[in-house]
C-alpha cells in the first residue's frame, strides 16, 4: 500500500472529541476554582474584618471610658478651685475606678499642677512634687477646652498615653484641668486574647509603626513596623478591609500572610490582622486539590474515551478500506462485517452487495472466457492440422512462396493456440479448477528436460545454460508437469529478454523447509515499478528493448498460480541492464 496520507482519521476524531470535551472542562474547572477562591477570599476578609471591627471598638471604648472616668463637672465659678482635699478625693476615686491609670493630677488654668496622686501612693501616701506643665503640648491642647490624648509613649511598665480633660463648669468654662497617665496593658491583654484561627496574629501600632499591643511573641514587639507590610499605607489613613482591601505578602515574621487592617483616625493608630496563608488557605487548598483531582480524573477519562470512541468510529471504516483492498486484488468473496447500526453499516451492506455483483460479473466473465477459449481451441487445432497436411504436400505440391505464407499462418496460429491455452489455464485457475498432482519429485529431472527442450532456442541467441544440480538435492512436493510449465515460462522469458549472448544460471538453496530454485539471467532487467506489477494478468513490460518480444502477458500470472497451488512462493529481484533473478520455493518432501 503506497498511500500518502496526512492525518489519520482516528487521530482527527480523537483530537476533535478531546478538544470539544476538554475546553468546557477547562472552563468549568477554572470557573469552579475561581468561585472557590473568590468565596474563600470573601470569607477570610469577613473573618478578619469582623475581628478588626471588634478590636477597634474595644480600643475606642477603652480610651473613651478612661476619659469619661476622669471627666467631672463642677459648679465652681471661674477663678475658684477645689480645695486640696477635694482634689485628692477625686484623684483617689479616679485611680480606684481605673486601675490602669498610673497617676492623675489637677492643673490650674496656668498649667501648674495643684495636686498629683500616683497609683502606688494609694496604699502608701507619698507627697508628690508638683510640676509646671504650662510649656507642654498637653497644656497647649487643653487650653482649647478639649479632651487630650497624647501620642503613645513606651515605658518599661508598658505602653502609655496621657489623657486629659478640662474641668468645666455649668457655663461651659474651664476652671481647671485633669490629666492622667493611662497604662495600655489592659489593651495589650485584650489584643493578646484575640484569636485569628490558630496561627493568625493581630497587632495595634501607633502612628510611628511601633507595636502597642500584639498577640505574637514579646521580642517581635520591639520591631519598628512603619516600613513593613501594609503599615506605612495604613498609617496614612488607608483602610484595608473587604475582599478588595485584603493583601497577601510576607510578614515581618517571615511568613506568607493574608492581611487586613483598619485605621483609627482619632488616635492615628492602626490595627492589623495577619493570618498565615498556610492555615488561612488550608481549606481552600484541600478544596482545590479535590477539584484538581476530579478535573484530572475527568480529563484522563475524556482522553481515554476519546481514544476509544475514535477507534470505534474508525474500525468499520478500516474494515471497508480492507474490503476495497481485497476487491482491488480481484477477491470478491470476502464481505465486510459491520454492525454499527448506522449509516456506516448501510454503507457496509451496499459494499457487500457491490462485491457480490462484481463476483457474479467475474464468474460470468470467467465462464465466457473459458467457453470462448474452449470453443476456439477446436478450430485452431483443426487449422493447425490441415495446414500441416498442406505443407506435407498431401493436398498436392506446394510452391515455396505458398510454403512461406503458410508458415506465417502456422506461426500466427501457434500464438493463437498458446493464447487460448493460457486463457484456459487462467480461467481454470480463477474458477479454482487448476489441478496439480503433487508427489515427491526430483526437481532436477523436469528442469533438465526443459533445458534440453529449450536448448535449440538458446543456441540461436548464443545463450548458455548453466545448471549443475548438487548431489543430495532434496525432493520436493510438486507436480512434475507443472514444474516443467513453470520452468518453460521462466527459462523461456530469460531467453526472450536476453539481448545477444548471455547465460541463464539455475541454482538451488534450501531455506527452512523449502527448496528454492533461482533462475538468473544476464538479460535487460527491469525497474522497481515494473517488478511490482510483474505477476499481474496481461501485464507486459513495454519499452524499446521489449518491442520485438512476443507474449500474452499471462505466463507469469499462471506460474504464480501454479507455484502457490503447490504451496510455494515466487518472487523476483532485478536491476535494469544487469539481469533478473526469478526464484520460487517448493516444500521439501519429508
Amino acid at each position, binding site marked *: 500500500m503506497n498511500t*500518502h496520507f496526512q*492525518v489519520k482519521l482516528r487521530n482527527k476524531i480523537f483530537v476533535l472529541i478531546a478538544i470539544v470535551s476538554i475546553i468546557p472542562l477547562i472552563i468549568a474547572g477554572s470557573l469552579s476554582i475561581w468561585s472557590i*477562591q473568590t468565596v474563600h477570599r470573601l470569607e477570610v476578609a469577613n473573618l478578619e474584618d469582623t475581628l478588626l471591627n471588634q478590636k477597634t471598638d474595644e480600643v475606642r471604648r477603652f480610651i473613651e471610658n478612661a476619659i469619661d472616668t476622669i471627666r467631672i463637672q463642677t459648679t465652681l465659678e471661674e477663678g475658684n478651685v477645689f480645695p486640696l482635699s477635694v482634689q485628692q478625693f477625686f484623684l483617689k476615686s479616679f485611680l480606684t475606678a481605673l486601675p490602669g491609670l498610673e497617676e492623675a493630677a489637677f492643673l490650674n488654668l496656668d498649667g501648674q499642677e495643684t495636686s498629683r496622686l500616683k497609683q502606688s501612693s494609694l496604699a502608701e501616701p507619698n507627697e508628690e512634687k508638683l*510640676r509646671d506643665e504650662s510649656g507642654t503640648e498637653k497644656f497647649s491642647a487643653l487650653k482649647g477646652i478639649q479632651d487630650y490624648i497624647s501620642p503613645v*509613649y513606651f515605658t*518599661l*511598665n508598658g505602653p502609655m498615653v496621657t489623657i486629659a480633660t478640662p474641668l468645666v463648669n455649668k457655663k461651659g468654662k474651664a476652671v481647671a484641668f485633669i490629666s492622667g497617665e493611662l497604662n495600655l496593658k489592659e489593651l495589650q491583654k485584650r489584643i493578646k486574647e484575640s484569636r485569628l484561627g490558630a496561627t493568625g496574629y493581630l497587632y495595634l501600632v501607633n502612628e510611628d509603626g511601633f507595636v502597642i499591643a500584639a498577640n505574637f511573641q514579646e521580642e517581635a514587639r520591639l*520591631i519598628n513596623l512603619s516600613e513593613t507590610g501594609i503599615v506605612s499605607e495604613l498609617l496614612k489613613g488607608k483602610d484595608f478591609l473587604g475582599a478588595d482591601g485584603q493583601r*497577601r505578602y510576607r510578614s515581618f515574621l517571615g511568613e506568607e500572610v493574608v492581611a487586613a487592617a483598619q485605621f483609627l483616625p482619632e488616635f492615628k493608630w492602626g490595627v492589623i490582622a495577619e493570618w498565615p496563608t498556610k492555615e488561612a488557605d488550608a481549606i481552600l487548598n484541600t478544596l482545590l486539590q479535590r477539584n484538581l483531582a476530579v478535573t484530572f480524573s475527568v480529563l484522563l477519562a475524556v482522553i481515554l474515551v476519546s481514544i476509544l470512541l475514535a477507534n470505534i468510529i474508525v474500525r468499520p471504516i478500516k474494515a471497508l478500506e480492507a474490503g476495497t483492498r481485497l476487491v482491488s486484488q480481484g477477491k470478491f468473496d470476502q464481505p465486510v462485517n459491520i454492525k454499527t447500526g448506522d449509516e456506516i453499516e448501510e454503507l457496509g451492506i451496499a459494499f457487500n452487495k457491490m462485491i457480490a455483483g462484481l463476483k457474479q460479473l467475474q464468474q460470468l466473465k470467467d465462464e465466457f472466457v473459458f467457453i470462448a477459449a474452449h470453443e476456439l481451441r477446436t478450430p485452431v487445432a483443426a487449422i493447425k492440422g490441415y495446414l500441416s497436411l498442406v505443407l506435407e504436400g498431401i493436398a498436392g505440391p506446394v510452391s515455396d512462396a505458398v510454403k512461406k505464407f503458410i508458415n506465417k499462418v502456422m506461426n500466427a496460429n501457434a500464438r493463437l493456440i498458446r493464447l487460448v491455452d493460457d486463457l484456459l489455464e487462467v480461467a481454470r485457475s480463477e474458477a479454482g479448477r487448476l489441478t496439480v498432482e503433487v508427489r515427491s519429485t526430483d526437481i532436477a529431472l523436469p528442469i533438465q528436460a526443459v533445458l534440453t527442450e529449450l536448448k535449440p532456442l538458446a543456441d540461436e541467441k548464443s545463450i548458455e545454460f548453466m545448471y549443475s544440480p548438487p548431489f543430495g538435492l532434496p525432493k520436493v512436493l510438486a507436480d512434475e508437469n507443472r514444474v516443467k510449465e513453470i520452468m518453460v515460462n521462466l527459462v523461456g522469458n530469460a531467453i526472450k529478454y536476453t539481448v545477444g549472448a548471455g547465460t541463464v544460471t539455475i541454482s538451488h538453496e534450501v531455506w527452512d523447509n523449502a527448496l528454492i530454485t533461482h533462475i538468473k539471467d544476464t538479460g535487460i532487467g527491469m525497474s522497481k515499478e515494473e517488478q511490482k506489477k510483474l505477476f499481474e494478468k496481461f501485464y507486459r513490460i513495454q519499452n524499446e528493448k521489449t518491442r520485438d518480444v512476443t507474449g500474452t502477458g499471462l505466463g507469469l500470472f499462471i506460474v504464480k498460480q501454479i507455484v502457490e497451488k503447490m504451496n510455494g512462493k515466487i518472487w523476483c529481484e532485478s536491476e535494469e541492464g544487469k539481469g533478473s533473478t526469478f526464484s520460487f520455493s517448493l516444500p521439501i518432501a519429508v
Partner: protein
Amino acid sequence: MLYFRELTNLFYRGIIQIYYTQQLRFDKLHFGFRMIVRESFAMNIIYRILEVLLIILLLGVIGAVILYFYPGIFAKTPISGGTPQNRAHFYQNSAISISNVLVKAVYVVPKNREPYSGWHDILAKALDKVQRFHNLQFRGASTMNYEIFGEPIILLENNLKYDSGETTSSSPYVLLNLSGELNRRLFEKDGDLYNQAFVKKNGNEYAVLGVFYEGIGALGSPIHSRDQESIKKIAEQLGVPESVAGSIYIGPMDGFFILSREYLTNPILKSYGPTVLYHEFAHAIGFKDQYDRISGRSFSDDIMGGGRENPIEATYLGKPLLQESGVVEKK
C-alpha cells in the same frame, strides 16, 4: 468488561497494524509537523510518544490555569521590605551614629572616702535597667551595652579637690577636675590603671564614659572635637551658658556622664536614680533638657522634662527627641 475487551483488541490491532504498516509512508504527523518519515516500528513508538506529549501538554495548560488562580502561588502584592535597623544618630546630627552605644562605667572614690560596699552590683542593676529602657525607646535603631571597670578607682586627692558646690546646673567642675587624672591613669598606656580591653573602642561604637562618683554631682555631655577651640564657641554650639562649658580630653570617648553614687543608694533618690542616670547619659548622646533649670517649667513630660524624676519604669523618651535622632520619621 466490554471496554477492557475493546482496549485489548485495540492493543492487538495496533501491534498487527504496526507489523503490516512497516512499509507505509506518511508525510504529516497529526500534530501538523511537516515531515517525510517512514512509518517503521520506531516511528510508531514516536507517534505514541507524541500522543502522550499532547496529553501532557493539555494537562500542563490546565495545571497552569489552576495554579494561576491558586492563592499564594503568585503573590498579588509585592512582598514588603524589611525592618529599619541601626539608623539612630546623635541628636540633630545624622553624621554621628549612635547605633551601637557602649557605656564604660567606672566607680571613682576620692582618696579620703571609702568605696561603697556592694557598689558593683548596685551599678550593674541600675545599668541593666537603663539598658532595657534605652533598647525599648530606640526600638532596635540603637542598642546600648555597658562595661564596668572591675575595681573602684581611688583618686589621688581628697574630695574637696574634685567636688563642686554647684550641681544643680550641671556644673562641669567635677569632671574638669577629674578628667585629667582619669585620662592619665586609665586611658594612657603608662597609666597605673591602664587596661587595653577596657579602653578599647571599636570603630562603629559610640563610647560614653560613665563616672559613678563617691561625692556630689550629676551631669552629662557629649565630647566635641578639639577644633572647636574656644569655650565660648563650644557653649554657643551646645546652647548652654559659657559657665557650664569646659574643655577636657578623655581618651577615645565620645561622651561622658557623672552621677553621684547617692542616686543609686539614697532611700529617697534611688526610686528615680536610674532615671537620672539615663537623663545624664542622654546628654552624652546630645539630648537637651526639656525643662527650665531656673523656673522648673517643663516643656515635656518625658525623661528630659517633667518625667526626669519618675521611676525609670514610668518614664520615656519623647517623640521629638526620637525624631531628631532618626528613630521616628518626622511627619
